[in-house]
């Protein structure tokens, strides 16, 4: 048995990718609800806003419309923001895990914007508010059941010290 020919094939290129230190962009991103600063008893504190006013509203499956309960929480947020004018806020929109990653990002953007629009309608300057979507990337509750999903379909108003964004 003889082989007819041996064909030399071009040399393989070397592997390229090498993770290198120091090339990563500065960190940022992951904003949870954030630990509240100040005492809960202080009505001008972030802690008071989170616990007494309520920093989040919840949504039904695949919805971004605000329930009457959500509207009343957002009204209270707006009242607090009017009084505490030094704060700005980033509104995070979140989804539960029952959806594709990209769709949930878009859905989270809708939810954050629904909360934002309501606050603006209550007289909060749009320049004090920004929105961000986390899709299903940052669930609060981690069981795979409706009890957890209901808590994860949320828009959270995260206060930032300092006026203007």
């Amino acid at each position, binding site marked *: 048995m003889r082989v*007819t020919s*041996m064909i030399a094939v071009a040399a393989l290129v070397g592997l390229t990718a090498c993770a290198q230190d120091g090339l990563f962009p500065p960190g940022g*991103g992951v904003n949870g609800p954030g630990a509240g600063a100040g005492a809960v008893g202080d009505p001008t504190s972030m802690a008071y806003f989170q616990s007494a006013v309520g920093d989040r509203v919840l949504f039904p499956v695949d919805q971004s419309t605000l329930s009457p309960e959500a509207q009343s929480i957002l009204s209270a947020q707006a009242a607090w923001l009017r009084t505490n004018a030094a704060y700005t806020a980033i509104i995070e929109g979140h989804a539960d895990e029952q959806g594709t*990653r990209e769709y949930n990002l*878009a859905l989270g953007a809708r939810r954050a914007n629904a909360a934002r629009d309501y606050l603006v309608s209550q007289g909060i300057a749009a320049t004090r508010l920004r929105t961000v979507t986390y899709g299903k*990337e940052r669930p609060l509750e*981690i069981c795979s059941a409706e009890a957890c999903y209901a808590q994860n379909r949320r828009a959270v108003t995260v206060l930032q010290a300092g006026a203007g964004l």
Partner: protein
Amino acid sequence: MTRLFRAALAAVLSLGLALPALAQSGGPLRIEITQGVIEPLPVAVPDFVAASPQAAAAARDIAQVVRDDLVNTGLFRAIPSSAFISQITSFSSPVQFSDWKAINAQALVTGEVSLASDGRLVVKFRLFDVFAEAPLGQGLQFAATQATWRRMGHKVADVVYSRITGESGYFDSRVVFVSESGPKNARQKRLAIMDYDGANVQFLTDASSIVLAPRFSPDGSRVLYTSYASGFPEVYLLDVGSVRQTALGNAEGEMTFAPRFGPDGNVAVYSSSVAGNTDIYLRRLNGGAPTRLTSAPSIETAPSFSPDGSQIVFESDRSGTQQLYVMSASGGEPRRISSGPGRYGTPVWSPRGDYIAFTKQNEGRFHIGVMRTDGSEERLLTSSFLDEGPTWSPNGRVIMFTRETAGESGEAAIYSVDISGRNLRRVPTPGPASDPAWSPLLP
């Protein structure tokens, strides 16, 4: 079940997949399909012959890569060396075909590995049709640095696979993905890259920001992905060689995600959310203003070009639920292609142009499926608590995707499945992993 079988058979037939068998009757090597069940082709891949003691490890390891590649397709079965009657001790000696026929080896791969004077590995190999007692194609020789020995095995396997199935191969390819760690409510995500079989994992980013859904450029040299480095989702471009990352740049109040390259590698199509509304945009990667391709109050996302660049498939909930639509690459009125029950997302056009892979949600389950580009012949390939994000092998025969398990300890992993629905496998990764994107065949 019967329908699934028929669908699997149809898929195999439509791909023109030839299966080897009938060797006893003296026919050529080809794949035989019996009642929709493919009998894996018995193949013998003895350890390659080492031309010198220094090449012994490579000779053994490269043959193992070839065996693994072929077996992983589900189309081949490797005959264990313990069953061999002949041993291949010399690459140039005649093959004793009777010894390989006796163990029913339909195909035989022999090889030799030597170390060149410049330190590079040289691999020669031959493929034989045992029952025809003839070589199948010409012998080939590859040379490469020792560090890339695995790629030489993949190259050999690609040639063997291609000659027997008539399809182009897919083993000498890479996968960029998201490596995950940490608890479900504080998951850390890093971009990583690996060989298609899970070997040679390298990290491309650190864990300081959430990163999502990387996508290869058509030549595999760059990656588009979404990062939260600025605090907001934003599309980035990464050069795989230098690991340099560049934000494409969000406008004021804009969030961008779900990017993909156009087939010429010069444009990106992606989603942009402004004031809660998500639409699809196109931009040149060397600068210039974005072009808006959709303009609707509904969600438009997950765009993917047809390989000829003329059309874009995407998902939209304009009908009330997520469905798949195809539009011209310049925008305009889209036509809906999905029509079954449930919701459809993350459509991806096959590199062959013949199918669109997608994620489907129906009755509480997630599926990976494929359909013709007009929406016909829908077939679901998988079913689980959460399957999503298909990506095509370079030859359009295999799909990788993310499968995530339920519950507090739920984790993501990368799986692959043949587009016939057969051969579901978990792709090994060092830890939990998601969002795979398959490169083209490497040069």
